[in-house]
């Protein structure tokens, strides 16, 4: 009797398992970054599966690790992922190599023309879109309105670097553990490397001249680094040479920074529940030097499909879902408009509900003021604002930013760091056959 009952139970279990496996006959694997908006997207995946019957498996990684994993996978044709989360740096290079599926046949309802032109441009190669932006960002100033008021100063919408340096000095109160300004000094092309490159644009510097020669021996780079180090030594936090996005976010949210210039997506974090200063945060455009270029960057975290995946149709279906207007509305409905993925679609900034979010307009203005095709004062041979879109850049910029970080920490002079940067860059460009 008992044996029969067990047999029936086992048969029933097998049937249930088989049926559910049949109902969800396809599963796509997605590599993504562990940013808040991506984690939030994972929470809604069940809804996508319920609508389409397509299962989703996530591989969530820290930014640097994700880059290495997906780059290795795509270059070796590893085929581990059906969708990869990539940025503006990788997409045009990979698209040109034919490693990504072109997204030129997305449905009419998806409304591809609604994608902000700056984002679509940065995620395309020769006019073809190769990845759809999940969210886009620029950088801007986030500042403490209360500290600014106490210092007797008023933040303009578009300040200069000199104003920022003065304001930082005025807000610094070492006894109260308040630093006038927190900026990225951490080595890494996507960390301090990105910040100093964007900043250098406003000082008239560029990575390469038109013959692909490094330009660290010029006056503009010396001015950038001297200014940065001088200001941070005066008004920055201890150990700023090892601070990146997360470290500065934590300092700002603890009330230890007067100003922070970083990614616009941070706006929702510094005004969110985890921030102790959420009620007194103001926003302004990243500073300039009157040379015609501001020091803000342009970036998008986007979803692309590696060529050769067996699940191309399903992957496209997921990308359409995750980067659609409907997804934005889904998040807004459940978590409020301040928490929707920003910076990707024009319609979001035309939505009256979103226009009431305090940082919405400043984010859009920052995104619109960055042009990856014309980011430097002097002409340059590369595309990109806080990077040069060539395969060698990630390696070079990481090494160069290591030398810069060593200068911030006082281990070497600015001149020594620039001299080494010049040698490192030219050596790498020679190895890659540019010079």
């Amino acid at each position, binding site marked *: 009797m008992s044996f029969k009952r067990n047999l029936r139970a086992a048969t029933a279990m097998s049937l249930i398992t088989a049926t559910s496996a049949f109902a969800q006959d396809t599963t796509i694997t997605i590599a993504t970054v562990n940013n808040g908006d991506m984690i939030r997207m994972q929470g809604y995946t069940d809804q996508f599966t319920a609508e389409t019957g397509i299962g989703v498996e996530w591989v969530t990684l820290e930014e640097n690790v994700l880059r290495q994993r997906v*780059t290795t996978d795509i270059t*070796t044709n590893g085929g581990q992922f059906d969708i990869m989360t990539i940025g503006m740096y990788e997409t045009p290079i990979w698209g040109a190599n034919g490693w990504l599926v072109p997204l030129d046949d997305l449905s009419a309802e998806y409304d591809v023309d609604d994608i902000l032109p700056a984002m679509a441009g940065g995620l395309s190669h020769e006019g073809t879109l190769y990845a759809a932006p999940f969210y886009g960002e620029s950088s801007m100033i986030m500042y403490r309105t209360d500290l600014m008021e106490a210092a007797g100063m008023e933040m303009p919408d578009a300040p200069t670097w000199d104003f920022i340096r003065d304001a930082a000095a005025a807000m610094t109160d070492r006894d109260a553990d308040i630093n006038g300004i927190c900026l990225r000094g951490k*080595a890494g*092309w996507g960390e301090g490397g990105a910040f100093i490159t964007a900043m250098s644009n406003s000082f008239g510097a560029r990575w390469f001249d038109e013959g692909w020669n490094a330009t660290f021996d010029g006056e503009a780079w010396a001015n950038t680094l001297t200014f940065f180090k001088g200001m941070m030594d005066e008004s920055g*936090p*201890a150990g700023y040479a*090892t601070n990146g996005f997360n470290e500065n976010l934590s300092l700002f949210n603890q009330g230890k920074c007067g100003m922070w210039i970083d990614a616009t997506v941070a706006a929702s974090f510094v005004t969110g529940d985890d921030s102790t200063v959420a009620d007194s945060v103001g926003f302004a455009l990243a500073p300039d030097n009157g040379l015609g270029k501001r020091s803000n960057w342009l970036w998008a975290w986007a979803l692309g499909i590696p060529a050769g995946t067996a699940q191309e149709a399903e992957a496209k279906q997921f990308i359409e879902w995750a980067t659609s207007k409907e997804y934005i509305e889904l998040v807004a409905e459940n978590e409020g408009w301040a928490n929707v993925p920003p910076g990707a679609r024009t319609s979001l900034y035309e939505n009256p509900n979103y226009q009431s979010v305090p940082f919405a307009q400043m984010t859009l203005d920052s995104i619109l003021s960055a042009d990856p095709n014309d980011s430097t004062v002097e002409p340059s041979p590369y595309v990109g604002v806080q990077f040069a879109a060539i395969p060698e850049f990630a390696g070079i910029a990481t090494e160069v930013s290591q030398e810069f*970080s060593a200068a911030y920490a006082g*281990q070497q002079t600015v001149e020594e760091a620039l001299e080494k940067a010049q040698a490192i860059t030219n050596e790498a460009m020679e190895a890659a056959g540019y010079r």
Partner: protein
Amino acid sequence: MATKASRSAARLMMAPAVILLLGWMLVPLIMTLWFSFRTYLPLRGGDQGWTGFDNYVRFVTSSSFWPAVQTTLIIVLSVLIITVVIGVLLAMLLDQPMWGQGVVRILVIAPFFVMPTVSALVWKNMFMDPVNGLFAHLWRFFGAEPVSWLSDAAMPSVIMIVSWQWLPFATLILLTAIQSLDSEQLEAAEMDGAPKLKQFFYIILPHLGRAITIVILIQTIFLLAVFAEIFVTTGGAFGTRTLSYLIFQRVLESQNIGLGSAGGVYAIILANIVAIFLMRIVGKNLDN
């Protein structure tokens, strides 16, 4: 007594394991050698053919090469000195009869069971952070300015973290050696009026010679490839870029497989030179 047939059968049965092991070692080595002679840039169309010794010349003449070799040797030597000296002292201390000996020994050995990445993260965020770290709070408590460990004193910090991880290993081996020392020898020396310091230098230390040799040999092999601690704490900045880190940068960050492979071959040569040198100098202890 083995017959000719049984010996042949044994060889036949062992062959798959031997072939597998050989393949395990030889295939990556041969591939590294192969790639080191080619221009292999995955992001620029992949393998672009033979390049002779260009990668070798480029790697060794790059401005980053000698500083990386120097950093590697400094880390290896410093960690060896710290772990052996403190390891001997700790082993002698742990050998003394005391209350709760078992618990103390486990506590001393515990760091060895923590993964390098985890311990580096703990040291970086909980101890060495100049704002929220434990050391910063301690410094402030005594009225001093907190130290930015991982930028102002990056090399000593990395050496400290790696030494902390390897100290239990050295202590454990040395403790086992001390416990094998015949206590009658020490008692006899004490009765003859030999002071403690002389007992240490003339009886204990020579007895530990073989154990110290083992510690140095094993640790050197692993320390030459130290990576996770540097990756997590400094990312190779502030003069902490070792040879293995430089190779990682060339292969994964610069996506230059040929250049990185040439670096890998240099690393193999360096490791062998160091190993042969060590075997000759200190390995003699093993024969005695």
